[in-house]
């Protein structure tokens, strides 16, 4: 089979009906453009929504929880050793929320190569004193640099500078909702009271907005040393250790392992936020389904046009066969025609998809809930382009397959004698 000749004949047949061919190619272009734009946009949105959670959630969180004693008196009675016992009477002791031996645990985690980084945290229940009333609140004592590195803390500090938290002693970054209620401005000093009744003045150095209003009304951030001072605890006092892993998928397994090893509660991100993963998955699935449907519709267009072309060129096919072109040659000619439509339409579609994504990327999208987002999010994942390209070739090949077979089976005798 002479490839050059096949290409030559295909080209001539293609150009003979270039308008229909163009329409078919535009069908492919349109569907690939939509496919890529849709997936980029959808995936950008997914990433944004996920990052709302994932950026701010540790992959594994180590903490202590106040729980009733696991070993109840009846379990110690030998008579009932092999029974399932319901009688429980020992209440939770005045157990500390502190993670014991936190320094050593952090040291061990820092040397673990599966761990990307750790950030210790203290959660302290407080009251914000506003005139005569007290508002309940939570102050998170954080290690400012680690927190920013792992959880992009600075993104959520809408005014003021997050570094001041470290540099100014006894400073606080207030949640924007709480600040609003307290009429606090940057530079003001506010009073907080701990659950134990200790009172402490803190200087406001910034506001923070997470996008979740309920969180912003309650939470504030201070440096870890400030909170230790506030609670009257020693320098080793830590209630949470937040861990980011190099591979997020290992979180459930490692959480179990760390929990056992360090004798603390360990919560992985998948368990804590399972609904987000399901949401992302379903959204991605829908985008792919829509995109592929578009491509299949374009495929039917190509099928139609090739069929028409074959009826139109019946004589030409017959004479090609009469003068020595085999069925395979004719088949190849029409497959080449189909694939060129796919290749041409697909290439334009990939460029169109990139252009459409770039345009969506410029559309302003401002919402108070998402302080870091200024335009619609787009994910420029090269995989979408590769998938789009491959799909355009596959669908056009499928669309060309049956008409080509039909063309290759045309009996020149019937065609020629029919005249």
């Amino acid at each position, binding site marked *: 089979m002479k490839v050059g000749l096949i290409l030559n004949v295909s080209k001539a047949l293609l150009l003979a009906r270039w308008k229909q061919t163009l329409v078919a190619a535009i069908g492919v272009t349109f569907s690939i453009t939509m496919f890529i734009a849709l997936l980029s946009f959808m995936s950008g949105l997914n990433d944004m929504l996920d990052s709302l959670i994932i950026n701010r959630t540790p992959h594994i969180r180590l903490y202590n929880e106040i729980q009733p004693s696991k070993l109840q008196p009846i379990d110690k009675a030998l008579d009932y050793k092999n029974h399932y016992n319901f009688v429980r009477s020992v209440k939770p002791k005045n157990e500390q929320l502190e993670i014991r031996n936190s320094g050593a645990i952090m040291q061990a985690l820092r040397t673990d190569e599966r761990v990307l980084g750790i950030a210790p945290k203290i959660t302290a229940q407080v009251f914000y004193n506003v005139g005569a009333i007290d508002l309940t609140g939570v102050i998170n004592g954080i290690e400012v640099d680690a927190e920013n590195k792992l959880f992009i803390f600075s993104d959520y500090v809408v005014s003021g500078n997050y570094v001041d938290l470290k540099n100014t002693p006894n400073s606080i970054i207030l949640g924007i909702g709480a600040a609003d209620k307290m009429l606090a401005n940057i530079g003001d000093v506010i009073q907080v009271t701990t659950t134990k009744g200790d009172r402490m003045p803190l200087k406001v150095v910034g506001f923070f907005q997470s996008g979740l209003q309920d969180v912003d009304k309650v939470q504030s951030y201070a440096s870890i040393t400030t909170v230790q001072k506030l609670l009257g605890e020693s320098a080793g006092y830590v209630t949470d250790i937040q861990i980011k892993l190099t591979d997020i998928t290992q979180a459930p397994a490692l959480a179990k392992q760390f929990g056992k090893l360090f004798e603390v509660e360990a919560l992985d991100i998948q368990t804590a936020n399972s609904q987000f993963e399901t949401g992302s998955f379903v959204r991605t699935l829908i985008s792919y389904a829509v995109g592929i449907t578009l491509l299949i519709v374009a495929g039917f267009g190509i099928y139609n046009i090739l069929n028409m072309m074959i009826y139109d060129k019946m004589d030409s096919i*017959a004479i090609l066969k*009469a003068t*020595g072109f085999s069925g395979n040659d004719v088949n190849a000619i029409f497959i080449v025609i189909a694939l060129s439509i796919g290749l041409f339409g697909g290439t334009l579609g990939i460029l169109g998809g990139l252009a459409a994504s770039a345009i969506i990327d410029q559309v302003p999208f401002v919402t108070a809930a998402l302080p870091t987002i200024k335009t619609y999010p787009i994910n420029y994942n090269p995989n979408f382009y590769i998938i789009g390209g491959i799909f355009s070739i596959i669908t056009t090949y499928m669309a060309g397959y049956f008409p080509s077979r039909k063309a290759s089976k045309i009996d*020149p005798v019937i065609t020629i004698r029919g005249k």
Partner: protein
Amino acid sequence: MMEGKVLEAVQISKSFHDPVTVQVLKDINFAINKGEFVSVIGKSGCGKSTLLYILSTMDTDYDGELLIDGVSMKGKKESELARVRNEKIGFVFQFHYLLNEFSVLKNVMLPGLKLGKYSDKEVEHRAMEKLKLLGIDSEARKTPNQLSGGQKQRVAIARALINDPLIIMGDEPTGNLDKKNSDIVFGIFQQLAQEFGQSLLIVTHDNEFAARTNRIIEMEDGKIIRM
């Protein structure tokens, strides 16, 4: 002289089975020698065209044996038969069947390019020579639909000649032409037979045309009655 036989039909029969079995060819035996100019005549429906398409290898549904250049065509694959048609048989039909997407020259070249025996440049040169032989080299760059009927048929003859076939087959090649153009085409066939020793097998119902050929095969009801 066995070598002389370019084409031989041995007991070829053919029946159509739809809707009832009708035998259209019965026990056809004949041979064509090299350089012979043979015409097949007979009333319409006598099976002469059916015979031609069997001889051309395009119709493979028959009983009996067909030898082209001493080789049996029975049991050959579709692609092998295509190769035989390409290399050894030239066709001229009643209708010219030129491809309007290509120039006249390219139309003539296509079977040659398919054969791949010569380089593209040589095929072009040879196509030009064939067109010159038929006196239409000045139209080489035009497309077929810019040509008159007689010119188109001459291009079709040039296309049939491009691979120097063993035999040229024609199915009413002058059927669509007026008297003047018919004479031109006949003249070309005669010239090919006499000057180049080209074998020709032409199906026609034009008895005047047939009378001027070397040999007439007359058919009636699927049988040869005179050869």
